[in-house]
């Protein structure tokens, strides 16, 4: 039994295994399979200001060791989310990281303001700012593809939240230089980063000879993308070690299916790890990954999660 606690800025979590936004809804359904209070934290589905119906169907395509999704951020809107979902999460005693987004930077701020003002805010241990979504004001270009837009969102959101709230800017890997985007987000006040959101992908249905998703493009997730997630975490953590970026906690996400996989992301520099698509294969995945991680640490003689975060950088072979 290693010490599984992990520090995310002002908050200490009992263990580093979290759900991933959009892969666990808002908790009720998963609670049948995993005791949410036993997870490091529960990350909610990204919520926006108003209710959203999302994209037409088909919304998914299976791919080798992964899948595409095009949900289109379907959700109840912040008001219903707070009264219905966050309140329920608080009632069962979950630690919650709330994922928020907006069509515009101002919408992000509106959502953050409502969140901070709600009575259930007490269960919130962090806010994930999903800037990997399209910016209506900038021809639909994803906020996180552009340093200026990223900065704007983060500045507005952090201004709405109590000063010590851990905030995590969630970045897309679909950029030429992820360190530059991370830099803009941290410079604007984000206190942590979530790496990575899905990769943009397309599957063609070769019977109909047209894109399988009604919305054409979708986000690629699952074990297939794990090497890309590890690379993104590595690059950003390396930049922190080299003082090119301020040192903040990284929430690693992408393709984690087992305790070994979680260990991989921790070793690359993540302070906590989210389990996403794997939950669709195994509804008890987040709890299982936590237990497997515990065993994997024991087997290797580590006594705490803290020892392994970023360890692969130290152990890298100098050529």
């Amino acid at each position: 039994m290693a010490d599984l606690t992990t520090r995310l800025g002002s908050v200490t979590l009992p263990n580093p295994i979290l759900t991933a936004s959009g892969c666990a809804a808002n908790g009720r359904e998963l609670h049948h399979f995993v005791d949410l209070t036993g997870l490091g934290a529960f990350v909610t589905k990204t919520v926006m200001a108003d209710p959203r119906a999302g994209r037409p169907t088909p919304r998914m395509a299976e791919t080798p060791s992964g899948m595409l999704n095009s949900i289109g951020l379907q959700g109840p809107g912040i008001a219903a989310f707070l009264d219905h979902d966050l309140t329920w999460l608080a009632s069962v005693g979950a630690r919650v990281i709330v994922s928020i987004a907006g069509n515009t930077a101002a919408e992000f701020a509106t959502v953050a303001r409502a969140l901070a003002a709600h009575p259930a805010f007490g269960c919130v241990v962090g806010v994930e700012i999903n800037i990997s979504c399209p910016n209506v004001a900038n021809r639909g270009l994803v906020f996180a593809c552009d340093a200026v837009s990223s900065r704007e969102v983060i500045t507005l959101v952090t201004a709405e939240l109590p000063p010590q709230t851990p905030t995590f800017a969630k970045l897309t890997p679909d950029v030429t230089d992820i360190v530059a985007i991370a830099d803009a987000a941290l410079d604007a006040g984000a206190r942590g980063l979530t790496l990575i959101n899905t990769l943009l992908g397309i599957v063609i249905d070769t019977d109909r000879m047209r894109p399988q998703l009604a919305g054409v493009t979708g986000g690629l997730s699952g074990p297939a993308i794990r090497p890309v997630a590890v690379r993104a975490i590595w690059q950003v953590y390396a930049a922190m070690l080299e003082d090119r970026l301020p040192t903040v906690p990284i929430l690693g996400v992408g393709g984690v299916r087992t305790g070994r996989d979680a260990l991989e992301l921790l070793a690359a520099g993540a302070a906590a790890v989210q389990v996403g698509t794997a939950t669709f294969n195994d509804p008890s995945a987040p709890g299982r990954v936590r237990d497997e991680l515990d065993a994997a640490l024991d087997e290797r003689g580590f006594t705490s999660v803290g020892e392994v975060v970023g360890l692969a950088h130290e152990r890298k072979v100098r050529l």
Partner: protein
Amino acid sequence: MSGPAQTRGPLVTNEVVGAYHRLTIAAPGVADAAAPGQFVAVAVGGPTSAQLLRRCFSLHAVSAEDGGRLAVVVAAKGAGTQWLTALRPGDLVDVVAPLGRPFPLPDEPCACVLVGGGYGSAPLFWLAEVLRARGCRVEMILGAGSADRLYGVEEAGRVADAVHVTTDDGSLGRRGWVSEVLPEVIERTGARYAYACGPMGMLAAVTEVATAHEATAYVAVEESMACGIGVCMTCVLPVRRDDGVTAMVRSCVDGPVFRGDQVRWDAYADGVCRVPADALGAPRPGGH
């Protein structure tokens, strides 16, 4: 009825039935919890599988025998169902069940008609038994493209008061569609409920006929599902709620059974289901 559970048990039998495989899987606990209309999500490909997503199948039957078993009827379609139908007794199968909401049952004995298209008949035999146990008269209409793609015509004879068969090519029963037989059956039996499972087009047609005859249609839809347990939002369809508002609801937890007249069939065309413009949170210009 307790919630769904994940179990891993041996395949007990694998029988070829026409174009399908009828698989029985050891699954403790499912029999007590399950009701007709619910489904099971099965992991495919084994421990080194490149296929992450579970495959969903209607529960065909459950029994408490030998600690609990469930049966499904599977069409070998793509790689996942090919793997599944190639399993041998003793091979382990990982299932999550029972999932979804079952067919609602009438409060009082009445006539019911059960309509199945292809393997869509799979959940209906069990449903027929449950309905008859409640004193209902049950007639079944089974349809498919051709005789080999009909499932359970004999079994239907055992569990229903009357059975009607249609095939597109006339290779068994009447040539044509189930919806052509349905009006006569409803009229003659005075059925108050039509229960249907099969392709979307069939479900829409059954709903239309039933509604025209003042019967209530309950349809089990088949949407692509990534998780089957309500956490991913891939399986949605537009359903008119009791308050009149159309919402995109999850077929895995809010369905797969819906009242046919609440499903917005108008949103379906050309293999795509659009978000109706009047739906809650429908995209506005500039929306994501």
